[in-house]
């Protein structure tokens, strides 16, 4: 299967992807996400989005996190 890269923002709900790189995320937020377990190579499942379309809900290491799309856009992921 071909691995493709995309932004976390564009991942369809229900899919699990691997974190590849932080592109356009502020230093503080990137650190917080790392501490919450979103290290490179770790798996993230997109659970869904809020009724108004933003933020999106993720599952990382068994924990659910909400992240705005603007920030999710700066996170590059790989399909697995």
């Amino acid at each position, binding site marked *: 299967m071909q691995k493709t890269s995309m932004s976390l923002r564009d991942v369809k709900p229900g899919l699990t992807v691997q974190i590849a790189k932080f592109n356009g995320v*502020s230093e*503080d*937020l*990137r*650190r*917080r*996400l*790392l*501490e*919450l*377990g979103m*290290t*490179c190579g*770790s798996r993230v499942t997109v*659970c*869904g989005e*809020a*009724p*108004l*379309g*933003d*933020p999106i*809900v993720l599952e*990382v*290491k*068994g*924990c*659910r*996190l*909400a*992240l*705005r799309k*603007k*920030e999710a856009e700066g996170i590059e992921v790989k399909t697995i």
Partner: protein
Amino acid sequence: MSDKKLTVALAGNPNAGKTTLFNALTGMRNHVGNWPGKTVSVERMEGKAEYNGYTFEIVDLPGTYSLSSRALDEEIAAEYLRNEKPDVVVNIVDAAHLERNLYLTMQLIELGCPLVLALNMNKYAEAEGFVIDTNKLSKLLGVPVVKIEAIDKTGREDLLKAIIGKPAASNILPRYSEELEEHIAEIAKTPSERFDALFALLNNTEDEPAEITSTRKHIENMCGADIAEVIADARYAYIAGVLHESVHHMQAGGKSQTGRIDRILTNRWLGFPIFALIMYVIFQLVFTLGAPPMEWIETFFGWLGEVCGEGLAAVSAPDWVTSLVVDGIIGGVGGVIVFLPNIIIMFFLLSIMEASGYLARVAVLMDRIMHALGLHGKSFIPMILGFGCSVPAIMATRTLESERDRKLTMLLTPYMSCGARMPVYILFVGIFFAPEWQGIAMFALYFLGIVVALLVGIALRHTVFKAGKTEFVLELPPYRLPTIKGVLLHTWNNAKEFLVRAGTIIFAACLVVWLLASLPFGVEYGSLDSVLGMIGSAIAPIFEPLGFGFAEAAVAIIMGLLAKEVVVGTFGTLFGVGEEALGDVLINLFTPLSSVSFMVFVLLYVPCLAALFTIKKESGSWKFTIFAAALMLVVAWVVSFIVYQGGLLLGF
């Protein structure tokens, strides 16, 4: 003697059950303290507990995911652990999310804390198929591990026994990659400097030693990633190793309920109707269920005032003594206690929402809308509560994590028209509007409050609150059934705090107003001859451009600081007529246009002293409180000015 007294700090991730454990251990014997050198905004909860002849002084540290950043709560926790060196640190972890929770544990071990690891929520972990070998985990980490349930007494004995066993700091430090270890060893000459070495590498400062800068650069080059990623990776890799040996995951099929519940509560179509229903029920309970006890309290204090008045008259006490007791003390205390039913119900419901995990979902639902205002999704709840009473609404801002969000929300909440402003509208709308326009006029006032909050919010976001970050990452904790004990304790703690802190200061302020309304001796309470009346006459010209530049209006506005509905009673006192006859007097003083301008001013100026002192209490800053008051006064004046002068131009 002293070895029977232990200082115990509780550390853990948010949502791990830290506060539940704190309440369970200390019961009602706790109080709010201050972190040394910090001006507040993060509360320090302290309490006492006893076991087997030992006394524990328990300190609840802020809930954090890490200790390595410069965020205020993390800094407070790290500084406390380093400087005050508690005898034992209890690290409470969510057993169902062990991997993430152990990230903080690694840092506590590296800091050299005498640690007890308390595994909480084991039932949920088992339900999700995790089998945790606590002996193995204890051996691998070098710290005692006990299984507890913070919500009941399960494992309580074991935990207390582990605490009085006074554990030493773990002698098993985490091992990261060879490369990283080599460089840590270069900076940290002894194992106890390990945490500081990692902290220095993570947080670059301008005046750091050249050695740190070059080591950081070197590591980043070697690993091809930046230092924060390298260290987070290393810590999680080590944790994965520990868990691999001590935890078995039976089946993945037993998926937690949280996903299923989320699919309903944050559903595209059902999410908002359910939320609206919940908000409606909360609003009804807080203000409808709260109304009868409020009336009882009012009646009681009214009765008490009468009895005391008669009693004092019977012993022929001077009038000013009677007035001091009846209007000043009894009126003042009553004016504070009357908020208690609202506050108790509000905190009761809020803590159910918080403990169940729903509050975090509210933030997800409302974030898009509130973000447009520069606020966080969670700010919605204080704002909506503001329609009932500003005091509990401002207190509800403490559910917001960032200080910026809390302050901005505190500044905007008072523009939501609270219940106490209603009697003023009813009086004026009843006099100056035709019956068919009265409903629309009332609605327009409420709507104006929302519009002003919006505009003020946008203005503040582009000026005073420019610097704050608006990005957020929010943990959505698993849905959990709240416990009655936990909810009641949480409610009690907050209500107690309101009574003690706000009560004393609001009471004092009420006495000052009483004094102004009573001096010089012999004048009628609150009349134009009193000091208050003179102040009213002096400041009346300020309101000239707004259409109500006479002393009676100014006095009513000042008295309205006690509570907005007092505005109505004050007009009665000033004109010496009952509320029924007020209409005949007011119609000669106000034009329909100036009555609207007056109502707009009443809507927008400082809600009341109680609200103002609640802002002081929640923000911890007099400067901010004065800014808030000044802002509300200026906004009220400007909007009323626009209404009145605009109305004149349009020919009303």
